[in-house]
């Protein structure tokens, strides 16, 4: 049964088409007053070649289409007029329309893409059966239902059967029928595959099985599965995207941690280094037998000095809790002398005790691991961003697709809560209104008078100036506060510590971070207020505020780094032999930077905690419990979970991590812990505090948005880190790169020691001889892809036009056909007309042809 019905559509489609031609001629004879006769003939044949193209000769059809385009457009208007004659709008119309192959209830055209791809693979593999396979493929294009059944005339090999078995689940029929199909497939005789093919097949089977088992296992241990499910059921997929973003970042950081742990921490635990002291005679000894010390004598002594100063810490006995907390949040005290910060890492070549000839260059490992992690993060992000971009590009094709997206993809089918569903409805309603609003806005924009336009532009210009001024003021504030805090900190530390001073120190330590955080809280409110004056569309308002806020956050960090940088070169480095203690430089500026970023990270977490539990939670309680029902209560208690703001929080945290990673290699680990806490804080915030945002956050758009913000901040981060690696002289007293001119020179030294050919290659990579052709090549490649994309775009619009013309064709032919049927029915009288209409209803397969014959 399947065989018969499945085969019919194409054959029948073509049949009825060729049937139509004489019919048209007949019509011409019937109606002499028809205008544009000749054109219609021409167009019909064009239409035929077009629909014939479906089977496989698409290229030819298109070409014919293009050649005739000019003619069509002239004729188009007339056809349009003729295409929808109201007089023939009768009962036959809809019936015949449903009989068209394209409109048929075509259950089984699913999974077509994969089947066809596989088939083409196979035809490449087996050149001997090419013709047979080709026939196969073209049939596949029209209807795959047939394909599920084993073709008993041909030998079906095991692989094919297996593939088809895998495809069964993609068929939109009830389980009962799928089961029948499966049985049919399994009972059909198959050719056993042998040799390599059999091996490949079993490997494929095995792989797919393991994959599904693995997936099941992963789904069992998946992190936060139930929390995510709860969010999904109650708030929809837009919010879930936010939480999965946190999860993704957590994994990224975990991965970084693992790399850092394996290549930096573990070697330090299991490998030893020969000796580490400042005593001169040991030093001269060690130089002779083993070059395990990389630093010069004086630097080594500086280290000692540094360590001594650092060990000048209060004894354990009078180590109060307050001190512990203070050190914990400041990253000072014992933390400063831990693996948390750059300063503690030694400049050693490590050796294994049992095999001393095997050396492990720790500084090099430190450098390489950090660079590699950054690159890997970049690659992962770019991949995710590209996926997101593709999706958002697809949807941004026009206003119209946004409507489709809203109507057909707007409802979250996983919503399982009454409140959520009514909120969702409201959100969809708002979004629809938003779109209509945008449309109205665009219309209004076109009607704006010159005067109004000028005024608006003036306002915008003014607002932008204000924004820039605001940003500038905040940067100055950050800069001043950092310098101020640094100076005072130095003074305070110089004078012997008293209880009061300790508090002052804490205050000064947190001054720059505090200023940054405060600005980050206040300025966005101002920005949001300002943007309202500018009269943009709701969408652009969102984007604009986001961009401004992001630039504030990123730039404030950069300013912080710059001001720290200002303090570094103030030290005369002309006397390398003297351990610097008279200059204002912190003992180990890398550690200082690390501490600043560590503090920012901690502060960020604290602020998040406070706003959630001490601001939003009481607000919610007061608003919804105490002042229930009143308007003030609603105003206090209704807190929107504004995703962009929360995303910014997360991205900001990640930026801190990247910035600080080099100066504080354990910062990713800290960030991991922080992210776990943040997840629960945000979860609480959204579950208890917030009513869902009445704005609709579409999953696809927000995914792309998150990642692109992350990417931008990554790039901004890379610049200062890269600069410090390549240009700034590392501290003499601490860290794995002490005594070098720049951190990167470690790398250069290694290159210098490598074999000649490698050295030549690597050095060549750095010259203009390589860079210039590479850049030119990249530009050319970019241009090539741009050109291809442009050509494709053009092609798409051409094909779309063609499709529209075909549609008019079809309408035209259908109406003519109906007319004919009606006329013949009238001629034959009432009895016959009853007879001729029945087959249309009953049989779906041959009815087209039959009615034509009738």
């Amino acid at each position, binding site marked *: 049964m399947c065989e018969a019905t499945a085969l019919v559509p194409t054959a029948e489609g073509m049949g009825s088409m060729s049937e139509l031609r004489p019919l048209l001629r007949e019509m011409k004879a019937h109606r002499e007053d028809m205008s544009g006769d000749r054109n219609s003939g021409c167009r019909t044949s064009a239409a035929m070649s077009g629909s014939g193209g479906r089977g496989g000769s698409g290229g030819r059809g298109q070409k014919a289409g293009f050649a005739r385009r000019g003619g069509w457009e002239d004729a188009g208007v007339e056809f349009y007029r003729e295409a*929808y004659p109201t007089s023939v709008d009768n009962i036959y119309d809809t019936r015949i*329309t*449903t009989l068209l192959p*394209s*409109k048929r*209830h*075509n*259950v089984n*055209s*699913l999974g077509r*893409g994969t089947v066809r791809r596989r088939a083409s693979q196979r035809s490449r593999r087996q050149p001997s059966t090419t013709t047979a396979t080709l026939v196969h493929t073209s049939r596949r294009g029209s209807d795959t239902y047939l394909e599920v059944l084993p073709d008993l005339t041909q030998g079906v090999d095991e692989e094919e059967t297996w593939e088809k*078995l895998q495809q069964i*689940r*993609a068929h*939109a029929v*009830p*389980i*009962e029928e*799928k*089961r029948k199909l499966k049985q049919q497939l399994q009972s059909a005789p198959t050719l056993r595959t042998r040799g390599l093919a059999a091996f490949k097949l079993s490997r494929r089977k095995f792989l797919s099985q393991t994959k599904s088992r693995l*997936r*099941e296992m992963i*789904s*069992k241990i998946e992190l936060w599965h139930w929390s995510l*499910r709860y969010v*999904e059921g109650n708030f929809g*997929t837009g919010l879930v995207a936010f939480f999965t973003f946190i999860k993704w970042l957590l994994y990224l950081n975990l991965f970084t941690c693992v790399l850092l742990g394996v290549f930096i921490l573990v070697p330090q635990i299991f490998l030893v280094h020969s000796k580490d002291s400042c005593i001169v005679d040991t030093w001269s000894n060690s130089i002779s037998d083993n070059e395990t010390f990389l630093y010069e004598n004086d630097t080594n002594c500086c280290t000692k000095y540094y360590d001594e100063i650092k060990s000048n810490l209060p004894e354990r006995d009078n180590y109060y809790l307050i001190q512990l907390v203070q050190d914990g949040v400041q990253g000072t005290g014992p933390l400063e002398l831990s693996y948390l910060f750059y300063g503690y890492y030694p400049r050693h070549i490590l050796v294994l005790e049992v095999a001393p000839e095997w050396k492990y260059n720790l500084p090099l490992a430190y450098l390489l691991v950090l660079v590699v992690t950054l690159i890997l993060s970049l690659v992962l992000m770019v991949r995710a961003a590209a996926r997101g971009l593709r999706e*958002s590009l*697809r*949807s941004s094709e026009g206003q*119209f*697709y946004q*409507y*489709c997206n809203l*109507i*057909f*993809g*707007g*409802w*979250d*089918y*996983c919503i*399982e*809560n009454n409140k959520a*569903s*009514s909120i969702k*409805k*409201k959100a969809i*309603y708002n979004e*629809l*209104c938003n779109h*209509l609003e945008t449309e109205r806005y665009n219309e209004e924009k076109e009607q704006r008078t010159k005067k109004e336009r000028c005024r608006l532009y003036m306002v915008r210009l003014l607002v932008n100036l204000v924004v820039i001024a605001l940003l500038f003021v905040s940067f100055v504030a950050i800069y001043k506060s950092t310098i101020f805090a640094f100076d005072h900190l130095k003074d305070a530390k110089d004078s012997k510590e008293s209880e009061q001073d300790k508090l002052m120190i804490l205050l000064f330590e947190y001054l720059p971070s505090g200023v940054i955080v405060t600005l980050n809280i206040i300025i966005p409110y101002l920005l949001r207020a300002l943007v309202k004056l500018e009269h943009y569309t709701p969408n652009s308002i969102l984007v604009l505020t986001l961009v401004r806020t992001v630039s504030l956050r990123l730039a404030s960090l950069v300013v912080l780094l710059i001001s720290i940088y200002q303090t570094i070169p103030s030290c005369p480095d002309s006397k390398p032999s003297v351990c610097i203690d008279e200059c204002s430089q912190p003992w180990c500026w890398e550690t200082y930077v690390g501490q600043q970023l560590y503090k920012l990270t901690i502060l960020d977490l604290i602020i998040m905690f406070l706003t959630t539990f001490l601001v939003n939670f009481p607000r919610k309680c007061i608003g919804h419990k105490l002042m229930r029902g009143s308007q003030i209560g609603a105003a206090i208690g209704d807190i929107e979970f504004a995703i962009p703001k929360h995303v910014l929080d997360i991205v900001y945290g990640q930026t801190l991590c990247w910035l600080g990673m080099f100066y504080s290699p354990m910062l990713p680990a800290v960030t991991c812990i922080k992210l776990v806490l943040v997840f629960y804080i945000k979860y609480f915030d959204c579950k208890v505090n917030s009513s869902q945002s009445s704005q609709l956050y*579409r*999953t*696809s758009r927000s995914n792309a948005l998150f990642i692109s913000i992350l990417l931008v901040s990554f790039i901004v981060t890379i610049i200062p880190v890269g600069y410090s690696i390549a240009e700034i002289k590392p501290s003499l007293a601490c860290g794995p790169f002490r005594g070098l001119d720049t951190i990167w020179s470690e790398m250069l030294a290694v290159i210098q020691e490598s074999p000649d050919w490698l050295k030549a290659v690597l050095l060549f990579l750095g010259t203009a001889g390589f860079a210039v052709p590479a850049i030119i090549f990249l530009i050319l490649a970019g241009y090539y892809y741009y050109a291809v994309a442009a050509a494709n775009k053009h092609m798409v619009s051409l094909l779309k036009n063609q*499709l*529209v013309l075909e*549609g*008019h064709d079809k*309408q035209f032919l259908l109406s003519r056909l109906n007319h004919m049927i009606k006329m013949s029915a009238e001629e034959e009288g009432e009895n016959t007309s009853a007879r001729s209409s029945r087959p249309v209803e009953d049989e779906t397969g041959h009815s087209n042809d039959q009615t034509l014959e009738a």
Partner: protein
Amino acid sequence: MGNKNSAFTEEELEDYEDLTYLTRREILIAWGKWRGLVGGRGEPDKISRYPEKDVQKLPELQHNPFRDRITRVFSSLKDSRMSFEDFLDLLSVMSSKAPLQLKAHYAFHIFDYNEDQILDTEDLEVVVERLTGDHGLLPEEKNKLVERLLEDTDLDGGGISEEEFKHLLTKCPDFIHSFRFSV
């Protein structure tokens, strides 16, 4: 686990695994859910069919504006009554592993209220109405919306056919994210 496992023979489980996009564990969870839904009418089996009211107690369906359509489309005899196997079909299509084309097929039929195999103005109006709920758009807004929807989608006139709809959905990136349940 043992208790749940006894509901299926090994063969049945394998069958279901082969025929749906669900994993073994998900099938067992689905069975648990099914028992919760229709358990009020005695111990359920896999082929007896239950009225849509029972099935619509599923939290995901309870608040879905299209619940009646979903039960109708997934009912194997098109009488809105569902058996466990139909329920599995529903979950399979709604699983995140199901391909877009399959999802689109069912979505098309869910949206096709008058069941004439074409999404026309009538269908779209109902869809929009149900989506926005009580907030109801003004009639002229609704008309404008439907008009815009049809304007570009419907290239050959007469409503959106299934093939056109599938093509359309490949350009609606949200659909694949939103058209799913998680088990």
